[in-house]
Structure formats: C-alpha cells, structure tokens
C-alpha cells in the first residue's frame, strides 16, 4: 500500500497537468476546443457536412470574415480597436467592382489601388490615434460612419451600373471561385495572410514592436520603440487587410448591397475576444482571431443549414458567444492561479533520524565554535557570494547577486573590482586548465570569463527529454560545476521545474527535478548524464580524477558518479542521511572534501517530507510567508573523505555571521566561506593544514 502511494506521488498526474498548463499554447485552449467541438457537432447534425464540396463551401465563405478578424486583431493587439474595418471592407468591395468591372482598369492596378485605399483609411485612423492622440474607439467609429455613409452614397449613385455588372475575366472568376489543390483561392490567401502576419508579429521587428506597444506603451517607449509610428503602422495594416478582404469578396459575390460589411466589425471584435485576445492589447495571436472568427462563422452557417429561423440563430449565437467569452475571459485571467495551485506536486521522502548535532554529543557533527571568529572579507561590498574561488595569484573571486563576477585583489582583499558582468544570477565557480573562470548562471546556463576578462558562453542547452511535455532543453538552473582532468565540464542543474527564487518550492516537492550534465569543450556537445536527481547542487571532481561527487540537497546525500576506471558510468550513494542540506563540495588539502550545509534538518520538516498530502495542502491553503521552511539559519561546514566518512565539522552557532553557507574553499592554509544571502566572505585559518596547498595546483599542477 505504501509503495503504491509512493508510486502515485512519484508519478502524479498532477505533474503532467501542471506542466501542461504551463505551456503557452494552453492559453487558447478554450477557443481551440470550441472550434473543434462546433465543427464536430455540425458534422454530426448536418448530413454530408464533411463532403469535399461542403468543406470547400465552408472555407470559401469563411475566408473574408477571417481576414476582417485578422484586421481587427492588428488594432486590438496594438492596444486599440478598429471599428472601421467593416466599412472599409464594404467600400473596398465596391471599389474593386467599380474600378475593375465598371471603369475597366486592369486587375493588378485595381488590387493595388484598393489596398492603397484601405491603407489610406488606416492611415487616417492611425494618424489621428498615434499623432493626434485621439481615442481609438471614437476615432474609428467616426471613420466607420463616414466611410459607411460614403459607401451608401456611391452604391446608390451607381445602382444601374452595379446591377448590370457581369462577371469579369477568368482571372477575376478564379479569384472568386477558383481552387488550388481543392482549397478555395480566398482561403489560401487567408492562410498565407495568417501565417505571414503571425510571423510578422512574432519574428519581425516592426511586428514585435506592435505587440510591445500593445503590452505596455510606457515600457515600449522606454525600450526605444517609436510608439507613434508603430501605432500608425498597426492601423495601416488593419486597413490594408480589410481592403484585401473586400477585393476577394467582390470577386466572389459580384455585388455591393446595403448589407455588405454591416456589422462585420462587431463580428470581428467578437471573434477577437472569443479567441481570447486581450482587449487591453499585447496578448494574443493571429491564430486566435482566426479561431474566434471560425467559431462564429460555423455557428451561423451551421444553424442556417439546420433551417433554424434567422432571428433565433442570431439570439442563439449571442448567448453562446456570451458564455464562451465569459468563460474564456475567466480562464485567461485565472489560468495563472490554477497553474499555481496544481503545479507544486510534492513527493514522498522518507528520512531516518540523522546523527546528532548536539554540542558535546561526540559525533563529528557536534556543534562547536570554530567559525565563530571568522575574519570578514569584503564586508558589505558583496551581495550573495554563493561561491568563492581563488586564482594562482591568490586573488579572490566571487559572484554577486546583480549578475557580475567580483574580484578582490590579494593580499588584503581590500580592493574590489568588477571582474566581469554577465547577467543572470551567477552561482558555482571553477577554473579550467587555461585559467578561464567558468561559472554556472541561473536562468542562463554556463559561461566563462577568460583571464583577459572577455566573457564567452560555454553552453545553455542540453538534450531534451523526449517523454516530457515541458521543454527542458534550455538550462533552467545551472548550479555548480567542476572540470574533469580531460577538460570535460560537469555541472548540476538543480531543477528543471523551478527558478532560483522558487528553490523552496522545489524543496517542498522533494522530487527528482534536477540533472547532472556534461559539456565537452572539444566537441561543443552538451549531454545529460544523469536525470531525475533531487536538487543536485555541489559538484566536485574527486582527487583521483575518476569520479564526480555531487550533493543532493533535499535528500541530504553525497553521491559519486564514476567517469573513469572500472566503474565508469555507474553511480552510487557515498554518504546518506546527513544532518544538513548539502551544498557545494570542494577539495581539501588533506585529500578529503569540504562540504557546505546550506541548512540543517529539523524533525518537523523531516516529518513533513514524509507527508506529501500535508505539503500540498500547505502550498494551496496558506500564504507563502506562513509556509514551513527548511532551517537555513545555521552555519555549518563538514569534511568527509573518499570513503564517505565525515571527519569533522566547523560551526558558526546560530549563523550569526555565516548563515546559509553555500561554499567553502580551502586555499594556502585558509578556509574561505561564502553564503547565498550573505554580505561578506568569511576566512579562517586552518590549524595543521598545508599552508602551500592551492586548489588550482591540485587540479592542474604547477604552472
């Protein structure tokens, strides 16, 4: 029974659900499902709905409405609205008929002129809105009224001509009723338009700027975007697309009635909202607008085909739209909350009682005062030195919260200089054979700084887990690294599910979310060596160079992964059930290893780790500041040997100067101490340690 429960918590479907919800393509899931559902419903209700002829008719009749929705989407994504699309569409329809069939201009000239007309109407809208700072709603409403009135005038003026038009050339007929590979021409145009505009809005600078301005006008301006020009262009695009729809409609319908385009702006707006495009701008895609339009179109045409009376059809569509839009708005708004509630999926972790840490208990973990009088280096000159390292000239390097590598110059470490600025949150450090300083950066990957201070990227992606929904090819949280004798860089990725700021949530899960990854600088290939590791943190190549030691923070284990020798490729637990949460591991001068405890286990937290349901409830039901937290207000480092025996510990009781220790580095008879949240680097003299030992020599020999 217990093993069943354990298995359930290990492979919880909630895990899948959480990662599913996190997918960006889940946002339009409602309109997408509705599109499919409406289509299937009519396919069942209407005989011969799925025949080629019927599908072709559906596509042919849908295309222009889809285009007008795309036109509307442009303006809405830019943070505005374009109510004039319906009128511009109708006028373009008339102009196409007039110029081509009544005046007799060549077709290409007609098409260019009509699209220019649409662009001009867009320019009026955009000009007033962007440069005249008028309100989009009123501006485009006025343009709607003016263009509509003009349309009514000209169609009356040319009644007899319009009534006597006959179909034009074969090209014209092809535009209206031709097919390519069975797909109506106007539908093809819509497809190209949708793909093209999607590409434009997501990949091309002016298009991305439209999205940026829609998201936040202020931020866009601060980022150097010419907001006015971008707004202007959005309306020009909108007008042009509406005009294009008008041309195709003209070729298909050959008529220009008083009802042409009437209310199309409302349908387009409904389509955009139904597709889940935010009316506040900046959020949504062209595909969603097309989906929204498809739903409305299928409902209308389907109900007409079912023979439902016109007024009833309108009412039913109104009700369905109201429900769908209401539901969709709620979904878009609350998806984040739902995700938050289901994402954290705690697993079952069993702990034995740990060795005692009590002062005088006689265990190697017994509390003492050996770190109490650590000398403070760089006090208040550094924020969050997660790792520290020293070079051949004794200069001290550390990482800073703001994304830079700071160097304190030997011998007194009073001079602070920014060695390199990379960004992200730099964590673990290591020197390679050529004295390049390699650094793991949370949110970015692994980077390096050459001695001449130039920054280079080592790697930012690894092999993707094929069976997983979440794309884990990008490095989420590279934590610590070390370099093997052959130059391969081994590094840990603590979690593929949480970012650094949410490390505590990963702790609540206690799940194998992390990986051990190896990058080969010679080939440039990065591959995942071990996966499903529970918060792999510190990484250290053993003294003999044959294995990688890695620390699992939440399981309080030190593991060994063999990279050479007879056991190469296998891994084993070296030390289990440590009393503290393990962080970085580094070599010691006596052939042993230093290990930093970022926090200490407590009975309460151990109990909680045995109870995933309790932790789930905690995360769901109480605010974060009341959550149970691992005890990190301690300062403790320990030393262990290759046999997995812990030999001694050094304490700063109560963590007064060194809480949350994440790194210990031995150098020339001194121990340097770094902490994730600290404002200093500690240094103590190690009695009896080799005063000439330095890590660099241990790794790479004398220069």
């Amino acid at each position: 029974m217990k093993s069943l429960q354990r298995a359930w918590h290990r492979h919880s479907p909630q895990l899948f659900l959480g990662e599913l919800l996190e997918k960006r393509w889940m946002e339009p899931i409602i309109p997408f499902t509705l599109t499919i559902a409406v289509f299937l419903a009519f396919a069942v209700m209407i005989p011969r709905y799925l025949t080629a002829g019927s599908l072709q008719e559906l596509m042919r009749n849908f295309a222009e409405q889809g285009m007008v929705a795309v036109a509307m989407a442009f303006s809405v994504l830019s943070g505005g609205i374009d109510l004039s699309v319906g009128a511009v569409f109708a006028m373009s329809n008339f102009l196409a008929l007039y110029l081509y069939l009544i005046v007799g201009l060549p077709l290409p000239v007609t098409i260019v002129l009509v699209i220019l007309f649409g662009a001009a109407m867009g320019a009026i809208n955009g000009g007033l809105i962007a440069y005249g700072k008028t309100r989009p709603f009123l501006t485009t409403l006025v343009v709607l009224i003016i263009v509509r009135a003009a349309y009514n005038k000209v169609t009356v003026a040319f009644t007899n001509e319009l009534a006597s038009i006959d179909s034009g050339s074969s090209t014209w007929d092809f535009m209206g009723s031709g097919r390519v590979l069975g797909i109506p021409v106007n539908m093809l145009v819509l497809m190209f338009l949708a793909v093209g505009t999607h590409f434009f809005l997501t990949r091309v600078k002016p298009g991305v700027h439209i999205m940026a301005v829609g998201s936040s006008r202020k931020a866009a301006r601060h980022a150097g975007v010419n907001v006015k020009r971008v707004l202007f262009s959005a309306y020009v695009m909108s007008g042009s697309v509406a005009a294009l729809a008008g041309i195709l409609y003209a070729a298909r319908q050959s008529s220009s009635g008083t009802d042409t385009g009437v209310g199309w702006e409302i349908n387009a707006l409904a389509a955009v909202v139904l597709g889940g495009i935010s009316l506040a701008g900046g959020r949504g895609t062209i595909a969603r607008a097309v989906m929204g339009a498809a739903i409305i179109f299928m409902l209308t045409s389907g109900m007409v085909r079912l023979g439902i009376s016109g007024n009833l059809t309108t009412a039913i569509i109104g009700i369905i739209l109201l429900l769908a839009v209401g539901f969709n708005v709620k979904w878009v708004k609350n998806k984040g909350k739902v995700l938050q509630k289901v994402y954290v999926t705690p697993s079952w972790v069993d702990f034995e009682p740990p060795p005692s840490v009590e002062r005088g208990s006689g265990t190697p973990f017994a509390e003492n005062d050996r770190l109490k009088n650590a000398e403070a280096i760089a006090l208040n000159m550094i924020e969050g030195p997660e790792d520290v390292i020293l070079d051949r000239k004794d200069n001290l390097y550390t990482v800073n919260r703001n994304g830079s590598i700071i160097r304190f110059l030997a011998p007194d470490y009073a001079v602070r200089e920014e060695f390199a600025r990379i960004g992200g949150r730099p964590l673990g450090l290591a020197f390679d054979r050529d004295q390049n300083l390699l650094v793991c950066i949370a949110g970015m990957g692994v980077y390096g700084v050459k001695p001449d201070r130039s920054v280079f990227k080592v790697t930012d992606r690894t092999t993707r887990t094929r069976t997983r929904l979440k794309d884990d090819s990008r490095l989420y949280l590279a934590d610590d690294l070390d370099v093997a004798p052959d130059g391969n860089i081994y590094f840990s990725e603590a979690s593929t599910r949480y970012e650094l700021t949410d490390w505590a949530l990963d702790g609540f899960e206690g799940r194998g979310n992390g990986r051990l990854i190896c990058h080969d600088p010679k080939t440039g290939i990065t591959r995942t060596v071990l996966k499903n590791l529970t918060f792999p943190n510190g990484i250290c190549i053993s003294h003999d160079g044959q294995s990688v030691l890695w620390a699992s923070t939440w399981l309080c284990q030190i593991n060994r992964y063999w990279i050479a020798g007879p056991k190469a490729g296998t891994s084993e637990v070296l030390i289990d059930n440590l009393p503290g949460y393990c962080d970085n591991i580094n070599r010691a001068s006596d052939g042993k290893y230093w290990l930093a405890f970022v926090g200490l286990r407590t009975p309460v937290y151990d109990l909680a780790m045995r109870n995933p349901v309790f932790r789930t409830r905690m995360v769901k039901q109480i605010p974060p500041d009341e959550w149970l937290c691992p005890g990190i207000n301690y300062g403790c480092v320990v030393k262990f040997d290759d046999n997995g025996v812990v030999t001694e510990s050094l304490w700063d009781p109560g963590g007064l100067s060194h809480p949350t220790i994440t790194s210990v580095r031995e150098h020339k008879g001194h121990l340097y101490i770094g902490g994730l949240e600290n404002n200093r680097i500690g240094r103590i003299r190690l009695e009896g340690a080799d005063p000439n030992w330095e890590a660099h020599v241990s790794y790479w020999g004398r220069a």
Partner: protein
Amino acid sequence: MTRAVHRRVFAGIGLAASVVIAALVAAPSQAAGPRDQLREKFDKALKGKTVAWSPVWMGVLESEWTRVMKDRFDDYGIKLITRDANMKSDIQLQTVSDYINEKPDVLVVQNPNVTLLAKELKRAMDAGIYVVQVNMASNTLSDAYVGVDAKDLGTKIAREVINQCGGGKGSGEIAILEGEATAAYSLDMKNGAMEVFKTDPSIKVVSSQPTSWDANKAGDITTTVLQQHPKLCGILSVWGPQTAGAAQAIKAANMGDKVKVFVASDGQPADCDLLEQGAFSANLSYRADVQGQTIADAVIALLQSGDKPGAKNVAYYTTPAWVKSKDDRMYCFSIPKDAK
C-alpha cells in the same frame, strides 16, 4: 395421336391459359383508364422530390409563400427545405452554394439583388437543378420566374401618381422610396416609374433613396425629405412594410393631408389596414398567397416537363390590382389562424 401432337396441344392450352391469366391480372389498370395513369405519372414525377428554398428572410410575405408551398408539396409528397438568410446576402450566397452541393431537384430563390446569385443560379442549372426565381429576379434567367413584372408595376403606379400629383393637381414633387437599390424588384420598378415620370414635365422627382426594406430607415429618409421639400406631393414606395415607417413620419410631421402615399405591395393584411386608416393613398397589390400557389405550380410543371434544366425560360407574372378603399380588401390576403 402421336406423342408429339399431344405435346403441342398441351403447349397450346398452356399458352392460352397464360394469356388469359395475364389479361386478368392486367385488367384492373386497363379498366381504370387514362385518368389514373395521369395520376400515376404525376406521382412518379413528383413523389420524393426535393425543393430547396432560399428566401431573403422570413418576413410576412416569405412566410406566406412558404406556407402555401408547403401545403401543396406535402400533399404531393415533395420535400421542402427552407433556410432563412435573415437579410444577410453573404449567408444567402452560402446557402445557395450549399444547396447546389446537396443537389435538390428544384431550387427556389428570392434574389436579394440582381448580381449576387447570378453565377450560382447558372451553376445550379448546369448541375441539373431546376431554378425558379421568385418576385425578385437575377441577371441570370432561369427555368421559371414567378412574380410581379416590376417594371410594369412601376409604370402603373407612376401613372396613378401623375393622376393625383401631376398636371397642376399637386406640386408635382415626388420622392421615391426604393427597397434594396440593386434588387430587381426595386430597381426595375423605379426605372419603370422614372420612364413614365420623364414624359410628364409637371413631375419632379426630388429624392430617390434605398431603404434596405427597413421601415425605420424609410421613416428617417421621409422626415428629411419632408423638411427639405415641404411642398412634397407624393411618395412612391416600392413595398408596403417599409412604407409604414414613411407614413408614420408623415403623420409625425402633420402632413397627412398634404402628402399622398403610393405603394406597391404583396397584399399582406397590414397594407390594407394602413390604407383603410388613410395612411396609404393607393396600394397596387398582388397577393402573396396567390404567388405561393403559382410558385408551387411552376415547380410542379418543371418536375413533369422532362426538360433539361436551363432549357426554357418561362415567366408567370402576377397580376396586380388597385386597393383604394375598404371594398378592395380581397386584394389583400389573410393569414390563416393556425399558420405558424
């Protein structure tokens, strides 16, 4: 007798017997004569056939047509499919395209304008579907047209207008309320009227605007026209329901005794009511129920004709009659109480 002879005799008897039996079996049909054969041929041509009907919308007029057609078709075992485009031309085009894909035997359409369905009606006939156009024709001629001769209607109504407003009897200022400008019914009626008006210099058409068949819009137009032309003598409106809005506007402007309203309409009860109330001066009426019968007749004729669709263009013009007083009530139809 030899065996061979015996056999021949038996064969002879057998043959005679079978002839007699065959005659006996065939006797009832032969005995019923040509009238039953006619019915049989009729049933064979009609039973199980499908008529697809695409009205512009389901107004009073269209409902009456539909009601009458359905009564008749039900009787003959013809299936009637109706899809309401609700005044949306794109939906109607779509409807007709869908119909063509579904291959009914007869397609009955009321064209929203002269161009919209022109290509599709041709395509329908090419696909082997009879096409009947109703009251509002297209630029494409089809197997049958049932409805008014709109141009003739325009001519007749214009003469009546001249009678009452021209030649010094009134100011001669006339406003025309069109329906949908490019709908054949409105376009041809207007053109017919204009041809007549051009012959009379005392008549001046001060305004001619489409109302999209909408009473509110007709009312708005009328209000404006009355303000611009206070001496207006008459309004010529192509259809009854929209004219109700115009009459209301005239009443609101207190010009009921000055402005005369001439209307052509389909004989729906409200038209005669309005005339009796004095809102309309003269109504050139044709009866929708009669037209409904004629549509059914045209369909039946086509189904029995054996012609190839598109082979002939037959017209069934409706004869209108003037409604000028209560006594002319018979030129309006009445809707049966149990009709939906």
